[in-house]
Structure formats: C-alpha cells, structure tokens
C-alpha cells in the first residue's frame, strides 16, 4: 500500500500497479479500462508517491505474475543485475534527475539498458514532461545493421510503405518508385498485404527484391503479414530479408496475435539461416502500440503505457533491426486526441530507446480521432528533435489500404531539411549515385534520363 498526503487530503494506492496507472498522464484508454486517476490532483499525488519508490521495488513486485506470463519471465530471467548496479540505489524521482544530468553519456545509457526493466522505464517516463522525454531519448544511440546502417547520429531513416488495396504488384511498384524518387526507403521497404497468404507475400517480395538487386539499392524489404505466413513464404523460397510481427506486452495479448516467444525465436532462426544481411544480422522488425493489450482484454489491470513498455522487452530479446510504435492507429477510445497521441508517441520513443531499441514511430491517426495533419507535424518535429530512428513514408500521407493517415515522403524531406538529417550512409551514397539527391542531400529535379524513370515500362508493362 502506498500513501500520499496533500494538505488535508490523503491518497492511497493499493499496489505498484495501481500507483503506476494513477500516475499516468490522462488518456482515454486508461479511463476505458477504469484504471486512470479520478482527477488531476490524484494523478499528481500518485506521481509524488511514485517518485519515492525505489527502482529496486520493481524487481521485488512483478506487476504481472511470473508464473502466469512468459513476458514477465523473460523480463526477470534476462535482467542484468550488474548493469543495474549503477542505478540500484535510486528511487524513481532520483532516476529522472540522474537521466537528465549533464554527466550522462550516450555510452553510459546504452550500457545501462540491459539493467533496466520496462516497468522502471515506464515509471520514470510518467514523471517526465515532453521535453524531458526528448532530452534523454536524444542522448540514446542504438545502431543496427542489415544491408545498411540504421540509427547513427545526425541520420534519419524512412520506411517506404507502398501499400495497395488489392496487393496489385504494379500498384505497389508505382508507389515504391515514387518513394525512392523522394529519397525514402532506407529503413525498409515494407508492405502491409491485404491478403495474409504466402503466395501473395512471395510475389510481392520477389518483385521488390528484383528491383533492389537491379538498382543495387542498399536496403531491405519486408511484407508485414503474420509471422507464420512469412515462415511459409520463406519455405516457398521467398526472398525474406526481415521477419515482421506485431507484438504486445503480455503473454495473453501476444496469444491474441497468434504468437509466443518460441515462435518468434523460430522465425528469427529461419531468417538468420538465409544469411541475406550483408553488413549485419538484425533480422527482426516489430510494431507495437499502446492499447493493444487492453483491446485483447489481456492487460492484467496495468495502464496501457506500462503494457507498451513491456512489449519492448519482447522486442529487444530478438535484436531487431527496427521497432516502431503505431501510435495513433488504435483509435480515440485509447488515445483520444492530438495531445494524447503526441504524448504517447514521445513516451514510446523514450521507453524504447532507453531499453536499447532502434525505435522509430508511425506518426499517425484515424478519422474518428480528434487529430489532424497539424498534430502529426508537431509530433513528427518533436520526435525528429528527439532523434527518432525512422518514420513512415506513405504517398501523400494517405494509406489507401489501411485507411489511416501517416507521414508522407514530403514529410521526410521536410524533417531532413529543417533538422539537417541525412539518410543511412549507404543509402545516401546510392541516392547520390542515382542522381536523386545532390551532395547537400537536397532532391534533384528528376528528368527522363534518370535510370529509375527509364526503367518504368519494365515494372509497369
């Protein structure tokens, strides 16, 4: 039991789980789950109380029972006590101060990551303002490799997302070429298929891989079907670079996605065995998002942000090339408006980075949320300043397959331009070679002599 006095008002919180939920900045999903603070004062009382909780307490009180949940077992069984030693004497409030101190270096934060468990990271984020989340995340540097190098400082990668409402190969190719000609695609060329079918997946992967090989593009591709479908495609001989899966922070939520840790391990093994990476062997790509555990009725009474941070423990175990939260996709019952989406995006990026992940973000919203492109510009800019690893490039920000709005190829040009960020180095060199960008990283005026333009008939005939 945790207590807090504020003047004559006394607040008590039954356990750590309740305390964390009540200390969470306001959002609709926690209200829907019935775990949110009753009012603004109770929220701050919980934050004051949480600030006094020793980090050690999170190692003594698993929030989801160890016996019932393999994610909890993963978190505790892989916790690095030695790395934790450096901060083991701190409480949550002191940990915030420690993180924000001028003395912290990027290397120190990277070394600390295995010593932190998601619940500690979620806890400290609840005491932070948006600028704190940005300040600390900016210091974290996580570098991964497959055919290029993702996550270097001063760089911004992009996932090219050329989805099509019927998985039509020419339709996918058209958006793909558009994206490449706007300088996007270094994180991954990743297609969400309409049909979760190994043959459809194989056809798309072959088309993208042919294009990649023909133009010698230093990047990787992925079709974001279910992991079991990707394994089937792989057995059919599909050129599988990265294995994708949506993941969540509890065993039960992952079960609702039709996955478990053993399956992810098997998938990773299969992708590694293909040996397709040239620079490195980060072969996994994960997506997450606050609210998914509640939506599956698998949240164990936890607030949605703590559940989300636990998903990052799943992700980091499999040494992914890419991880991103799809922050505004889930709808207004979880994140009601632009303010809540912006806050959640910054929290997710911070928690992912502090836990050692190459964290990107699908900055997005649906039409029934109280949000618009201005909110997306704000979050995109803030996350750009925070050093977010990558964003989505969707033609005109309008995903015609998933019916939601994300960020566009133009948005990627905007961010690279105003924050002076460059693509992954290998990809940057390729863009220069193909005449897409100039030495300064600016887009060239593309004419009919450009090799990609000259090849159009072959990909669209």
């Amino acid at each position, binding site marked *: 039991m945790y207590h807090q006095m504020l003047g004559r008002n006394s607040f008590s919180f039954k356990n750590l789980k309740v305390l964390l939920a009540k200390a969470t900045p306001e959002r609709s999903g926690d209200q829907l789950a019935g775990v949110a603070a009753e009012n603004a004062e109770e929220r701050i009382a919980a934050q004051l109380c949480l600030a006094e909780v020793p980090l050690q307490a999170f190692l003594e009180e698993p929030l989801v029972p160890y016996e019932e949940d393999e994610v909890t077992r993963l978190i505790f069984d892989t916790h690095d006590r030695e790395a934790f030693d450096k901060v083991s004497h701190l409480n949550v409030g002191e940990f915030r101060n420690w993180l924000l101190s001028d003395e912290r270096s990027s290397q120190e934060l990277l070394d600390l990551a295995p010593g932190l468990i998601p619940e500690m990271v979620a806890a400290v984020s609840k005491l932070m303002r948006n600028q704190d989340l940005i300040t600390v995340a900016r210091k974290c540097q996580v570098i991964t490799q497959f055919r290029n190098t993702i996550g270097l400082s001063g760089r911004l990668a992009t996932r090219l997302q050329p989805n099509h409402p019927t998985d039509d190969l020419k339709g996918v190719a058209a958006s793909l070429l*558009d994206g490449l000609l706007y300088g996007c695609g270094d994180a991954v060329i990743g297609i969400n298929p309409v049909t979760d079918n190994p043959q459809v997946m194989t056809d798309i992967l072959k088309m993208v891989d042919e294009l990649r090989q023909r133009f010698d593009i230093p990047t990787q591709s992925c079709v974001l079907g279910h992991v079991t479908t990707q394994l089937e495609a792989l057995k059919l001989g599909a050129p599988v670079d990265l294995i994708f899966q949506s993941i969540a922070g509890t065993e039960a939520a992952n079960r609702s996605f039709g996955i478990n840790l053993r399956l992810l391990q098997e998938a990773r093994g299969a992708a590694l065995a293909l040996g397709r990476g040239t620079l490195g062997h980060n072969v996994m790509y994960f997506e997450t998002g606050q609210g998914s555990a509640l939506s599956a009725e698998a949240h164990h009474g936890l607030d949605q942000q703590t559940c989300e941070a636990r998903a990052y423990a799943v992700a980091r175990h499999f040494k992914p090339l890419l991880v991103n939260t799809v922050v505004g996709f889930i709808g207004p019952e979880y994140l009601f408006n632009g303010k809540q989406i912006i806050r959640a995006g910054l929290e997710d990026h911070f928690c992912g980075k502090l836990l050692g992940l190459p964290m990107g973000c699908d900055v997005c919203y649906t039409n029934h949320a109280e949000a618009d492109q201005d909110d997306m510009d704000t979050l995109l800019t803030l996350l750009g300043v925070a050093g977010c690893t990558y964003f989505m490039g969707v033609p005109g920000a309008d995903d015609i397959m998933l019916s939601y709005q994300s960020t566009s190829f133009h948005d990627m040009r905007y961010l690279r331009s105003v924050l002076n960020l460059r693509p992954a180095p290998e990809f940057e060199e390729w863009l220069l070679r193909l005449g897409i960008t100039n030495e300064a990283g600016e887009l060239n005026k593309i004419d009919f002599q450009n090799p990609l333009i000259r090849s159009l*008939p072959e990909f669209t005939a």
Partner: protein
Amino acid sequence: MPYEDNEIDQNPGPAGPIVPLTGPGLDPAVIENPWQALRRFTPARIALGRTGHSLPTRELLEFQLAHAQARDAVYAEYDPALLSRQLQERGYPVLQVHSQAGDRKTFLLRPDMGRRLAPESRQLLQKYAAQGNPPPGLLFVLGDGLSAQAIHRHAVAVLDQTALALKAEGWETGPVVIASQARVGLGDEIGQVLGAEQVAILIGERPGLSAADSLGIYLTYNPYIGRLESERNCISNVRPEGLVYEAASSSLIDLAKRARLFKFSGVRLKDQPG
C-alpha cells in the same frame, strides 16, 4: 525499353483536381514529377510534385478536403425517423433503439456502451418479443456506426434486395431495427432479445480519405451478448464505387443460407465447402 518523353506527358493521371488552382506545369514554383503516368496503376497519392520540400497548394488542399469530409461524416446526424418512413413505405415493421452511448463523444470513447442497449430500448424489444411475433430467421439491424451517411445512402437498398429475395424463399425477417450510436456488437443483444436465428447489422464503416460512406455488413448466427468477432462474417466497402449493392446482397444471402445449414457463422464458415 525507355519511355518516350511525350508518352509520359500524354498521361496526366486520374481525373482532374477538385480544387481549381493553377493547373499542372503553370506555377513556376512547383516542381512537377515526370512519373505521373504511374498514377494509372494506383489510387495512392503519388507524383504530387513539390515546392521546396512541401506539397504544392492544390495537393495540400485536396487532402484537407478529403479529411474534412471524413471528419464531417463521423459527426453527421443520424436520421432514424427518415429511415423509418422509408422502410415503412416499403412495408417493413420498424423498431427504433438506442445504445447506452448517449452522444457521439461517449460513443467514440466507450465502445463497450455502444455494444449494449439502453434500458428503455431493451424493454421495447422485450415487449415486442412477448407479443407472440414469430422469431426472425434473419433479423436486419441498421446501425449508424462511424458513418450515418453510409446508412442513409445505401442501407435501405441493400436491405430491400436481400429481404425480398429471402422472403420469396420463405425466410422470416421480422421487424427492421434502427439503432443509434451503435457498434457491431449491439446486434448481438438485439438479436438475442428478439430470439433471432441470425442477425445482419448494416453499419457505417470508419470514414477513410477516399470514401466517407462505406457500408459494412456483419452476419452473426445465434446472436447473444459476448459473441466474438471471429464468430461473425463481414462484407466490407459496400457502396456504388466499391462492392455494389447486388454483389453485397447476394454475398449476404449466400452467407445466411450457409450459416443456417452449418448452424454457425464466422471464420469457420469461410472454410466450409460449397
């Protein structure tokens, strides 16, 4: 073989812009993309051109217009009285009900409340059921969901085609229930109270930028509160520019007959032969 320059120029892409601003190639600040020919392969917003790194004004405002229409569709007024008149003119008995979500904001924030009947609506249905009306074989529910426009524009036509065909084969369709602030799951409680063998809820889908009036149809065999999504069959994107009424109606009839034969609906029904 490379494209000839003029070949590409002759393919300006899909229908002209809605927003009448400077046409292609006329604004010196705008850098056009010489791959507009690709637009014929996808409805995606490609080859938009740019000014600096930004969208040209016309493309920007076209997007904003699509978003504005989608936003308005979410909040558009549902008119159950109008629907009721249209249905009664066609000879259907009508019942009007409301979910527990009293307004749009509650509906958006509390999907659980949109899946349950308001107490007075539940009583209304219980009263109707107690009057000795025969239990419906396929009960139709028209729910606003996330787009009332979808119901106003398409629901009566789809319902009429389907109900006439089924009645001709001896199906009992019962009253048509018009439900306000309704989620898909509300059909479960409605069907359960009225003792329906199956319920088909016609509901407004979440508006996208390309269409704000897409209708969805969800069929559930033996409906009761707590049915899982995997126990329903869905027909999506029903509208003249998407899945046309005839096709949607014949899919629904086919599903209902198969559900009756196998005595279940949902994912498993898809896998049954025939």
